[in-house]
């Protein structure tokens, strides 16, 4: 069983090793699981497990305070989060009227350097780990979200577009029952 890799600043200095490691993971998953949908699910789950830990590192190192609303949250993810962990800046567009759904656009993505998907991988979301990471991290700050790929450069699109939709905010509840 594969453990999630940890994305750390040291790897950014050796970006190729990072890209190759991620590629090796995807390749291994494809070999082990064979079904592309299973691989997508597994990548998302791995990303989720990374995200729930990464959030604390992000909060500790970036010193951001709690965001006022979801718009600020999306901006922080795109400008600070992606910058810190992947070394690239993303942008936020396509806000809906409620301010609960937006798209994060990545023009540059170190995960896919040198990658070309063969025809046998139709339906694979190669970068699906990223959707899991965002979902996991946001859940730890009380936001339940749905993160899906809208555009994928490995499938012929011009950019990577991730749709992040806020499903609900979960306020902190007193966890103990009122016994005694």
């Amino acid at each position: 069983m594969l453990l999630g890799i940890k994305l750390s600043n040291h790897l950014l200095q050796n970006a190729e090793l990072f890209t190759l490691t991620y590629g090796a993971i995807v390749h291994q998953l494809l070999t082990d699981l064979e079904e592309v949908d299973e691989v997508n699910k597994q990548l998302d789950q791995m990303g989720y497990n990374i995200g729930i830990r990464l959030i604390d590192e992000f909060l500790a190192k970036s010193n951001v305070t709690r965001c006022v609303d979801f718009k600020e949250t999306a901006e922080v993810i795109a400008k600070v989060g992606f910058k810190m962990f992947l070394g690239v800046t993303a942008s936020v567009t396509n806000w809906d009227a409620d301010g609960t759904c937006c798209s994060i656009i990545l023009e540059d993505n170190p995960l896919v350097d040198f990658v070309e998907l063969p025809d046998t991988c139709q339906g694979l979301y190669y970068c699906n780990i990223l959707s899991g990471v965002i979902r996991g991290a946001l859940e730890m700050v009380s936001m339940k979200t749905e993160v899906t790929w809208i555009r994928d450069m490995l499938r012929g699109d011009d950019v990577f577009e991730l749709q992040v939709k806020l499903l609900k905010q979960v306020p902190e509840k007193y966890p103990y029952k009122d016994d005694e």
Partner: protein
Amino acid sequence: MQFFGGSDISPSPPAPTASGNNAHMMYMFNRNGVCLFYREWNRPLWTLNAQQDHKLMFGLLFSLKSLTAKMDPTSAEKGNLGVPQLPGQGCSFHSFRTNTYKLSFMESPSGIKIILVTHPRTGDLREALKYIYNLYVDYVAKNPVYVPGTPIKSDLFNTNLDQYVRSIS
């Protein structure tokens, strides 16, 4: 200010214990009330058993956060109306002091609460608590063997924490 003579308060900091620390004890909780970590360096007095003590500490902080936010007289420009009170929104309290100890508190937006109890003349420990949060991130959160939400059992974390707390005045 000390009005009551207390034998446990002396002009100089308390004599170092075996581990040589200036703090009395430390707690860490997550957003679900699980006590992730408890360490004591100098605690002659226990009024409750450990489980009740942890529960009381968590409940106290939960209530204090709620109380301080509700009593905030300044303008509440943070958050939209109707958005439920989330960890870190509104005002946040960071310490209280009694005649025998000072309790310093920090909560991250992810709900990790760090409490440090020290002697009453300790200064502002907000930077120290942030440093301890960084220690948690480095030695616990980034450890792939650690399961988030469970008690912390890490020698590296303990050692580095002891070392750091020793240096807090």
